[in-house]
């Protein structure tokens, strides 16, 4: 596992970031209604 900590860490970071970005982008592109405002996470 000591040999694999870097791949694990990088894959987690990249994958989480990519999931957030791709999901948000796809939903943004598909969305027709105007965005609402307010405090968001």
């Amino acid at each position, binding site marked *: 596992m000591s040999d694999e900590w870097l791949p*694990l860490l990088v894959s987690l970071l990249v*994958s989480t970031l990519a999931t*957030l970005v791709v*999901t*948000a982008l796809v*939903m943004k592109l598909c*969305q027709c209604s105007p965005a609402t405002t307010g*405090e968001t*996470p």
Partner: protein
Amino acid sequence: MTQDITQIWVYLSASPLLGLTVTLLAYQAAFVLYRRSGNNPLVNPVLIAVFILVLFLTLTVTSYETYFAGSLTAIVSAVLVARMLDASTSTQFSLAPKSVTTPIAMGIAERIGGIPSLTAVLVIITGILGAVGARFVFDAMKVRDPAIRGFAIGIASHGIGTARALQVNEQSGAFAALAMGMNGALTALLVPWLVAGF
């Protein structure tokens, strides 16, 4: 008085109640910090609780099995297990279901030849990463819609992200919960199918 405390400690340390008690106290302390910070995502209560628990386990030399029997210890204990593992293919399989909630992810990992305990750790880390970092990612992308933010965080970081979304915005929380559920079901169907062709 000192003897009473000693007796309580002896009793707790010999039972799973210790893990449960420490977990609840750690999370409560972390949650108080989170509230006092103005719900700052960098002070994520799960992240802080993990640090507290790791510190506690290190200082008390509490065994993996004891804590696991108690409660949420899959987080810390699985990290300890993961450090001792060295299986490349298994690691990949363990990573596959990392974005769904822990029980589902562990079940999937077990079915596909992954390491459920490693998966549990990866799931938690993923959740924390998403809960802590999502706000900055969305702000950088200029994504303001709570529905989009909630849905994305629910898919990327399951229950931990959903909890974060619910604390901040009800609409985001609702979409995060929806996304988390859908992603769990979809991942349970897709991952074994994809691995079969691997």
